[in-house]
Structure formats: C-alpha cells, structure tokens
C-alpha cells in the first residue's frame, strides 16, 4: 500500500487526535512509513455489521422488558454484550440465581444491595436499573 492510498474513510468510529489506525505504507521511494488513518470502508462495514447484530438483540430484549416479560437486568446484560455466565463472573452471583432475577416479579423484590451489585457491573446508577420508563426511551 502506498501512502497516498491509505484510506481516510471517516464513519464516526475513530477520532482525530485521540485514536486513529496506525498504518504502514510505502512512500515514493518505496520506504515504509507510519501513517494514521481515520478508517476504511470495508472495515467500517464489518464493524457496522457486528454492531447491528448486537443492536437487534438489544431491541428485542428491550421490547420484552417493556412488555413485562423480562426484568431490566436482561436488557442491560444484552446492552453490555454479556451473557448470564459473564454477569455471574463479574457479580459473583450464581448463574441459577441470575436467571431467576431476569424474571420481573423476582426482580422487584431484590434488595438494594443486590441491585447495586448489578448496577455496578452495568456501569449505571441503582435508580436507572430500576427505571423501566427510562429503558423505553433508550
């Protein structure tokens, strides 16, 4: 790849002055140089494809939470691209118990300490985790 061919296809993923891709490309004399790139369409597309799949799953779960079929834990779990196993590893709560907490009826009976453990893993506040109205608007 020549320096002039290093793509600069900005798709909002990277940010100049913060993080860009370091590419290696050859100059006119054939010598390798480092060049920063803000992105390249094929890989932006690959990125979008991966994100789209995550988002589809998040949307699906969101509807189920709004319909009262699942607790907010299910929504934030999907949003953090986690599964029950990973949430269990982060919280120390057994998987079997977490599966129960996905049930909205069990969820509302959780004590504040348990809510806090989950909220911390999802990087949100306790009140946000409890607030289904908020999820509707996310």
């Amino acid at each position, binding site marked *: 790849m020549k320096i002039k061919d290093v793509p600069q296809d900005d798709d909002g993923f990277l940010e100049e002055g913060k993080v860009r891709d370091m590419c290696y490309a050859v100059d006119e004399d054939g010598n390798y140089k480092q060049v920063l790139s803000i992105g390249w369409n*094929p890989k932006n597309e690959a990125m979008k494809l991966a994100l789209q799949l995550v988002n589809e799953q998040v949307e699906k779960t969101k509807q189920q939470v709004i319909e009262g079929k699942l607790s907010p834990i299910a929504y934030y779990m999907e949003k953090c691209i986690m599964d029950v196993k*990973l949430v269990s590893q982060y919280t120390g709560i057994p998987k079997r118990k977490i599966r129960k907490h996905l049930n909205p009826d069990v969820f509302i009976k959780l004590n504040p300490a348990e809510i806090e453990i989950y909220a911390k893993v999802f990087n949100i506040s306790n009140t946000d985790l409890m607030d289904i109205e908020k999820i509707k608007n996310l």
Partner: protein
Amino acid sequence: MKIDFKHKQSAHCENGVTSNLLHFYNIPLSEPMVFGIGAGLFFSYIPFIKLNFIPVTSFRPLPGFIFKRVTRRLGIKTKRFKYSNPEQAMKEMDALLEKGTPVGMLVGVFYLSYFPKEFRFHFNAHNLVVFGKEDNTYSISDPVMENVETLTYEELTKVRFAKGTYPPKGRMYYISEVPQKIDLKEAIVKGIKHACKDMLTIPIPLFGIKGIRYIAKRLKNWPNKYGDKKASLYLGQVIRMLEEIGTGGAGFRFIYAAFLQESADVLEQPWLLDVSKEMTAVGDKWREFAYLAARTFKKRGTEISTYSQLSDLLFKIADQEEAIFRKLKIISL
C-alpha cells in the same frame, strides 16, 4: 510521581508496549523490529473454537508471545506476575512505580473508559504501560492511543481484573535486567526463522499457510452451509481480524514488510528488500480480499459466485506467502 517515560503510538498494542519499554531502557527498536524479532506474523483458523459464536480467525500468535520472544532473543531479563487478589496486584504495581519502573500489563477493554465506545468488546488481551501515579490517578501509555491517557485506581483495578474468556488476572510484567550489549543481528535471524517455521511446518492444517488454504476451502461453502446471514457474519469477522485496530493494515503483512526492509539494512543483505516488496504485494492482495468481502456481505451474498472468488483469492495469497517464507527460510548471518 511520574516516570520519565516516552509514549509512542504504534499499530499493535503488544508491539507498542514492548517497543516503548525497550526505548525506556535505551534499546531503541521500532515497532516492525519488535514484531519481526517476536515472529508476530501468523495465521490460524479454528472453526471449532468460537468466540461470540463466530469461528476464531487470527493473524497473530497468542497474546504475550511477542514480548516474551523479543526479550528472550535479546538476552533481556523480565519478571512477570499473576494475581488472584486485586488489592495485592495494585499494591505491588505501586511499589514498582515508586522505584521508577514502568510496568506493562494485560487488561480487558470493556471497561477501558478512554477507549472509543464501539471498540469496547469483551476482549481481554490488550496491553498498556502504567508509568505514574498522582493521588488516585495513574498515567497510562496505551500504544493504540495518540496521547497519554489516565485511569483512576478503581478503573485500573476493574480492567486488570476483567472477566470472561482469557481473564487477565492482574497479569503484569516489567524489564528487570538489560545486558551491556545486545546482538540485534542474531535476534533478527532467529525471529525470521521462527516465523518461517510457524507458517510452513506446523503439522496441523489450521495454522500458517495450511490454515489459509483451509479457510479458503471452507469459505466457498459458507453460504450453502450456514445461510447468507451467518456467512456474512463469519466473513465480517475475518475482515475485522484482518483490519481491526492494531494490524497496521492487511493482518500485519505491511508491518512485516517494513521489518524485512529494516532488516535488509541491519543485516546488510539487500535480497531482503525484494522479499519485502513481495510481502507488500501480498498485503495488497489481503486488502483486495477485504474489499471484495465487504462488498459480498453488504449485498448479503446475493451472488454466491463471490464466495468462490474470495476463496480463489485466498488460495493465491497462500501460494504467494508460501513462496516468500520458502525464500526467507534459508536466511543466515
């Protein structure tokens, strides 16, 4: 307390950490040099191991190998640690910083606050260097970032003890002893020989050139076997591994070409310049593959023929890379 540590951005995190740490100890090796001596070029396709439900494709050896090989080949002594107790991991790191030692470590990127949001997957093999602490805040040299970043005590603890696949468990490492004189030439030759061995002779069809041919063969049937959606997903993943932050373009092939170019000078063996050019050409082919692949999955593979085109392209790449490593194999001082 802040150590006088020079942060330099690089394509790949492990190369960058290694190169920056070596610079600190007055061994100024570039990123391509580190990558080449560490035999960082590789290929593997392991369809029966899945990460996020997608088969594993990789263009590099396992995390940690580059640092280990480079320091060993240069006769540099290192220390490495792993912890079960986060407090102890932080305390021992603090003690090292206090003594003026920059510390490299493995972290998970999901909770890495300064990382762009879209890149914060559960990936646990990211490397960075901690080189200072003021109050509750650490100075971080993260090789993929353009500038020095900071993390609080709590944030750093969280990323050092990320969970999931291959948890970092507070792993950290530093350089403990540097020899008076290093033998760069010999290290380069060993690094090249190692890469040749990895690419040509592993007797399992998933690795090296054989691995490229293996995925080429399988990829042709992805749309029939898995359906369009899954085939697109698999293809997307290959591109991401090929071009994601850290490869310098074309799955490290350009960095390796840069390494060969630099080595031609150091070893005074101009024939390596020609091989470097061939490597650049292969890199361009890989880019062509990524370009074609993206077009294929964007269309959601309405034309099956493109998958066989992609497969043909990979076979060509495999042939070219095989020729390159057969040439490199005979290298000596």
